[in-house]
């Protein structure tokens, strides 16, 4: 039943894609690698002298990109030779195309969302960063993947620094350092692999030697594996409103893609994924910054995908990638709605918000659509993808993992489905009244994302027709609908009950320690302690040596100095006697 070995690329079906708009007839010579269109747009944007020209470039680039990718389809193109290196810029099958399509959608939504933003840095990143993501999912070899892997980090950190707050430089630097390390691990693994196999080709890798583990770890960092996850929860909430929307869409999803390509069926992923669905929800319940709650929630959602990749059956893999597809939509929508709250009120902490539904009713409803989608309510996006992974786990006999997933599903509903809308828009009335209208672009982007969530959730046919592996699956069976509704409604009752009896942890101004404590507090402290110790040892060695030298100098001075025994003037007579005695001693020694 399970597929644990074999070339995943070969297993990806090559059935025609069920796109509503087939532009493959165009196939014109103007086609470009998808990433290059976005990079060209980003560079043009930097050169553009006026604001309206930049806006035009922002809008046109994803549109051209969309026509480009719809007319490209599957196949291998643009193997570029640079010196001794060959870079494979476009190796596309249904797996990479699925991510390619949704990345275009996400980039377009983000551009619309950021139409009011006049900051050139953010505008540049909102084209360059999706460009890097597209480059990575179409990379045919590990070296090309590495280049775009690092570009992902370099272009996206701009979105954290662009916040220009007290915290953003530090958060950005930590984000960058961890992501660059991930890239270096990938490069090391790739170089070892090249020396062993003679090729950089990127396909099924599977866990084996050192190289495969290095690459696995590299993907794991970008995928926010447990203990390697804090760059997400540390960095994302410090970005600008537009920045967090963009960040939530690309980097981790590229990592999910890479895992699905290289390590499908690696059983360890099931357990890593189960842990990922499990531990972040506890942090999410007590976290005060609502965008950080969503960052924790994102790790939880990626956990479901990682489980799916680990199970490795067609159903599970399809579930994993379609959940990534949907997560881009609903997590994007939730981040958008929280970005609007931050943009309009300047606040994002649960303890400072509440009652916003009174003056932001449309944003409230759109946020609830996102919340329903991430909670996998029937008719909303999450329902049609998560159920595949859950079903696959039962089918393959992973009862424990299945129970953990159900626990995590209830938990998601709790912290993302209820907590986010509740503390921002309802709860106790913070007295904040928003008088200005939400910027039109922000509103339009939220409406489009919400529309997409409902569309995919209520008629999943299009999504299913794009899935990489063969699929025989019906999301809307009576059983699925009833069981899922039961979980959600009883979880909601639990929330209400816990609120009523005062057991629910209130939103408090706080920082919660997590694994990042190791490098944010313990590491620096250790370095300070070590440098203190080194200073101490250094001082001891210096004074010790100096004292020894001084003592020696004094001794020598005593012996050989002007007043010393050895410097005394000896009379000639006594000297002759001494020489004679020594001569006798030597002769006696020789004779004996």
């Amino acid at each position, binding site marked *: 039943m399970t597929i644990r070995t074999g070339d995943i690329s070969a297993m990806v079906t090559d059935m025609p894609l069920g796109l509503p708009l087939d532009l493959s007839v165009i196939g014109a010579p103007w086609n470009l690698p998808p990433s290059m269109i976005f990079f060209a747009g980003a560079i043009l944007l930097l050169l553009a002298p006026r604001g309206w020209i930049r806006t035009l470039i922002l809008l046109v680039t994803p549109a051209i990109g969309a026509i480009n990718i719809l007319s490209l389809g599957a196949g291998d193109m643009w193997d570029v030779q640079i010196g001794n290196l060959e870079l494979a810029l476009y190796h596309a099958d249904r797996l990479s195309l699925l991510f390619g399509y949704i990345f275009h959608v996400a980039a377009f939504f983000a551009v619309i969302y950021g139409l009011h933003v006049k900051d050139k840095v953010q505008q540049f990143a909102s084209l360059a960063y999706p460009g890097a993501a597209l480059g990575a999912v179409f990379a045919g070899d590990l070296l090309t993947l590495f280049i775009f892997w690092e570009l992902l980090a370099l272009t996206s950190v701009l979105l954290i620094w662009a916040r220009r707050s007290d915290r953003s430089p530090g958060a950005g630097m930590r984000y960058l350092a961890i992501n660059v390390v991930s890239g270096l691990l990938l490069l090391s693994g790739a170089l070892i692999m090249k020396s062993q196999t003679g090729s950089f080709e990127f396909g099924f890798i599977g866990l084996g030697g050192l190289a495969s583990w290095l690459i696995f770890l590299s993907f794991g960092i970008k995928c926010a594996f447990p203990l390697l996850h804090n760059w997400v929860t540390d960095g994302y909430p410090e970005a600008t409103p537009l920045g967090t929307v963009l960040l939530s869409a690309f980097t981790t999803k590229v990592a999910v893609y890479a895992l699905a390509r290289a390590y499908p069926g690696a059983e360890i992923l099931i357990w890593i994924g189960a842990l990922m669905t499990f531990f972040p929800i506890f942090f999410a319940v007590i976290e005060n910054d609502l965008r950080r709650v969503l960052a924790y929630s994102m790790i939880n959602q990626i956990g479901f995908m990682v489980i799916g990749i680990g199970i490795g059956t067609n159903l599970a893999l399809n579930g994993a990638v379609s959940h990534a597809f949907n997560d881009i939509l609903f997590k994007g929508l939730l981040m958008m709605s929280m970005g609007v709250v931050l943009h309009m009120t300047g606040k994002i902490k649960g303890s400072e918000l509440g009652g916003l539904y009174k003056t932001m009713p449309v944003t409230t409803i759109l946020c609830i659509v996102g919340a329903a989608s991430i909670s996998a309510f029937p008719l909303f996006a999450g329902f049609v993808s998560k159920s595949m992974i859950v079903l696959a786990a039962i089918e393959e006999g992973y009862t424990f993992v299945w129970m953990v997933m159900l626990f995590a599903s209830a938990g998601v509903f709790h912290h993302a489905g209820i907590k986010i809308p509740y503390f921002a828009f309802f709860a106790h009335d913070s007295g904040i009244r928003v008088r200005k209208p939400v910027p039109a672009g922000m509103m339009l982007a939220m409406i489009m994302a919400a529309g997409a969530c409902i569309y995919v959730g209520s008629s999943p046919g299009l999504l299913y027709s794009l899935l990489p592996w063969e699929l025989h699956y019906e999301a809307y069976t009576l059983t699925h609908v009833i069981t899922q509704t039961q*979980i959600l409604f009883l979880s909601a009752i639990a929330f209400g009950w816990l609120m009523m009896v005062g057991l629910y*942890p209130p939103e408090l101004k706080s920082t919660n*320690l997590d694994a990042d404590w190791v490098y944010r507090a313990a590491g620096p402290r250790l370095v300070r302690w070590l440098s203190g110790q080194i200073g101490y040892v250094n001082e001891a060695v210096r004074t010790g040596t100096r004292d020894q030298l001084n003592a020696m100098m004094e001794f020598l001075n005593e012996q050989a100095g002007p007043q010393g025994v050895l410097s005394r003037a000896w009379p000639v007579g006594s000297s002759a006697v001494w020489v004679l005695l020594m001569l006798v001693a030597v002769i006696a020694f020789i004779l004996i």
Partner: protein
Amino acid sequence: MSVTNKESEKKYLLDRPRFARGLLVLFLLVAFGTLGLDLFIERHVEHPFERLVGFYGIWGFVSCVVLVLAARKLRNLVMRDEDHYDD
């Protein structure tokens, strides 16, 4: 300034007790409705646990209570000042 302070005159939707109560009743109806349906409908069962009537609802409820109680404990362990790292 896009943010002004609370005013007292306007009543909003959830300030009306009848609306709020109606919403709650509707919600409870659906919740217990899905549990009730379990008695009448032969669900497709993959795992023996699922045979239990209301299994999903019970597990959902238990999960949430455990989650929140554990999170309260976690808070005792990891919660620090808001500017803990900003020294």
